[in-house]
C-alpha cells in the first residue's frame, strides 16, 4: 500500500487523481442501476454528483466506500483498485474515508462527544479524556460548542448534520463523502453546511464527493459537477460550464423544468389537473 505522507495526506500533487471510477456497473435483481459509470476526482478537489432521485447517486457513493460491491468495472482509491480487496486491507483503506450520511446516522444511544470520538475509541488506545478533548476540538471546527455531553436526540437537524461531519473528520481522513448533506435543512442551515464543506476543503485539504440535487449547493461548493442520468455520467464540468451546458438533459435538470427529455412520457398529474379544471 502507498505510504501516507508526513502531513497525513497521501496525495502530494493536485493533478493526481484520488478516485478513478471506470465502467462501473451495479444491479439489484432486474434493476440495472449503474450502467458503466466513468468519473475521475482529483486530489483535493470537490466533486458534486447531481442527478434525479433514484438515478443511483447513493449507490455510486456506497460502491466507492465499499458499503456495496459493484458487479463490474474498476474503482481506484488513491491508486489502489478496491474490487478484490481483502477485509483487512479494507480497514486500512476505510481510514482514508469519512462519510456524512443523508440521515446523519448518529449513534443515538451515546453522547455527542462519544459519537465524534467513536472511531478513535475503537481504533486507538487513547484515554477517554483525550478522546473527549479531540471531539470537542472537532466540534468547534464545525461551529458547535457546549453540546458534547448532550444526546443526539436533543439536537436540531442542522446541528446533527454538523456532528456527523465532526465524526467524519475525527480520524483525519483524506476523502470525505457527503450523501445529500443539505437535504431537509432550511436555506440558512443549508448554507451553513455549504460553507463548512468549503472550509473543510481549505483547512484539511481533503478530496470530497458530494451527492446532491440542491443546485445552489453544488454551484457553491464544487470544483467540478458531474451529472448522473440513467446510470451513466452524461456530463462533467466546472459549475460555469454546467450552468451554460448545451446538453438538453443537464439543462432541464439544473433549471428544474417540468417539460423536457427527463420527464418525456411521464405524467405528473397535469393531465388530471387540466381535466379537473375543465
Amino acid at each position, binding site marked *: 500500500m502507498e505510504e501516507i505522507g508526513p502531513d497525513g495526506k497521501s496525495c502530494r500533487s493536485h493533478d493526481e487523481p484520488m478516485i478513478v471510477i471506470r465502467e462501473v456497473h451495479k444491479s439489484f435483481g432486474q434493476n440495472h442501476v449503474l450502467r458503466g459509470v466513468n468519473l475521475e476526482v482529483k486530489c483535493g478537489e470537490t466533486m458534486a454528483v447531481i442527478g434525479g432521485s433514484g438515478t443511483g447517486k447513493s449507490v455510486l457513493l456506497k460502491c466507492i466506500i465499499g*458499503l456495496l460491491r459493484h458487479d463490474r468495472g474498476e474503482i481506484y482509491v488513491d491508486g489502489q483498485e478496491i474490487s478484490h480487496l481483502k477485509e483487512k486491507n479494507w480497514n486500512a483503506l*476505510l481510514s482514508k474515508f*469519512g462519510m456524512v*450520511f443523508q440521515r446523519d*446516522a*448518529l449513534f*443515538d444511544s451515546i453522547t455527542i462527544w462519544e459519537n465524534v470520538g467513536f472511531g478513535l475509541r*475503537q481504533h486507538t488506545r487513547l484515554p477517554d479524556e483525550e478522546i473527549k478533548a479531540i471531539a470537542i476540538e472537532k466540534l468547534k471546527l464545525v461551529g458547535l460548542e457546549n453540546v458534547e455531553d448532550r444526546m443526539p436526540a436533543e439536537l436540531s437537524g442542522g446541528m446533527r448534520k454538523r456532528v456527523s461531519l465532526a*465524526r467524519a473528520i475525527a480520524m483525519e481522513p483524506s476523502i470525505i463523502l457527503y450523501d445529500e448533506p443539505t437535504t431537509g435543512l432550511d436555506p440558512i442551515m443549508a448554507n451553513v453546511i455549504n460553507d463548512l464543506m468549503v472550509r473543510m476543503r481549505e483547512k484539511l485539504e481533503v478530496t470530497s464527493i458530494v451527492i446532491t440535487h440542491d443546485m445552489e449547493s453544488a454551484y457553491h461548493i464544487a470544483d467540478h459537477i458531474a451529472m448522473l442520468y440513467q446510470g451513466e455520467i452524461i456530463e462533467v464540468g466546472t459549475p460555469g460550464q454546467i450552468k451554460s451546458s448545451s446538453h438538453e438533459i443537464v439543462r432541464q435538470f439544473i433549471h428544474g423544468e417540468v417539460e423536457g427529455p427527463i420527464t418525456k412520457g411521464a405524467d405528473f398529474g397535469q393531465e388530471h389537473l387540466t381535466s379537473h379544471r375543465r
Partner: protein
Amino acid sequence: MFGLFDIIGFWIMRFLDESGRVMILFLKTVHFIFRPPFDLRNILKQVEYVGIKSVPVVLITGAFTGMVLALQSYTGFKRFNAEAFVGTVVALSMTRELGPVLSGLMVSGRVGSAMAAELGTMQVTEQIDALYTLAINPIKYLVVPRFLASLIVMPILTAFADVVGILGGYLISVILLGSNPTIYIRRTYDYLDLEDVYIGLFKACIFGMIIATIGCYQGINTRGGAEGVGKGTTNAVVISSLLVLVANYFITALFF
C-alpha cells in the same frame, strides 16, 4: 396447477435462502468471537440487559410453572396412589424441559425482540453503515456481544427457573396438599440426576444462541423504515420461539 408449484417452490427457495443467511451470520459471529479486540464493556452491558433484567420475568414464570405442575401431577397421581412422586415429576420436568424452554420463550420475547428492534432501527437510520465506514465490523461490534451475553446468561436464568420451580412445587405440595416434606425431598433427590440438570442447561445454551442469532439477523436485515422494524421484531419473536421449541425436541431426542 403450475401456480401451486410456483408458490411451493418460491417458499422452499426462500426458506433455504434465509436459513443459509442465518447460518452465515452464525458462523461469522463465532469467528469474530475469537478475533481481538475483545470488547468486555459492551459484553457486560449486554449481560446486564439480557440477563439481570430478565431475572424477575424468569423467576415468576419458573415459580408458577412449578406450582401448577405440582397441582396437576397431584391430581393425576392421586388416582393411582402415587402422590409421593409429585416431587420427582416436578423436578424432572423443570430441569429437563420446562426450565430451559420457558426461560427460552420468555427471553426470546423480551430480548430477541429488543435486539431486532434496536439493530433494525440502527439499520434504517444508516447507523450500521456508519459503523462500517468507521472501519468497525458491525458483526463484531453489535452481534458478538449480544450473542455472548445470551449464551452466558441463558443457562444461569434456566438454573434460577429450575430452583424456584422446584421450590414452588415443594411449597404447594407441602402447604396446600399436605405432603410429607421429608418424603417429598427424598423422592426429588433419589430420582433427579445431575445429568438431567446438565441437559437442561445445555438446551439453554443452544436456545441462547438461537435467540441472539435470530434477533440480530432480523435487525441487521431490516428494510423499509418503521414498518420494516415492526416486521423484523415480530419475526424475531415468532421464529426464535418456534426454533426454541423445535430445537428442544431434537436435543431431547438426542439425549433420550
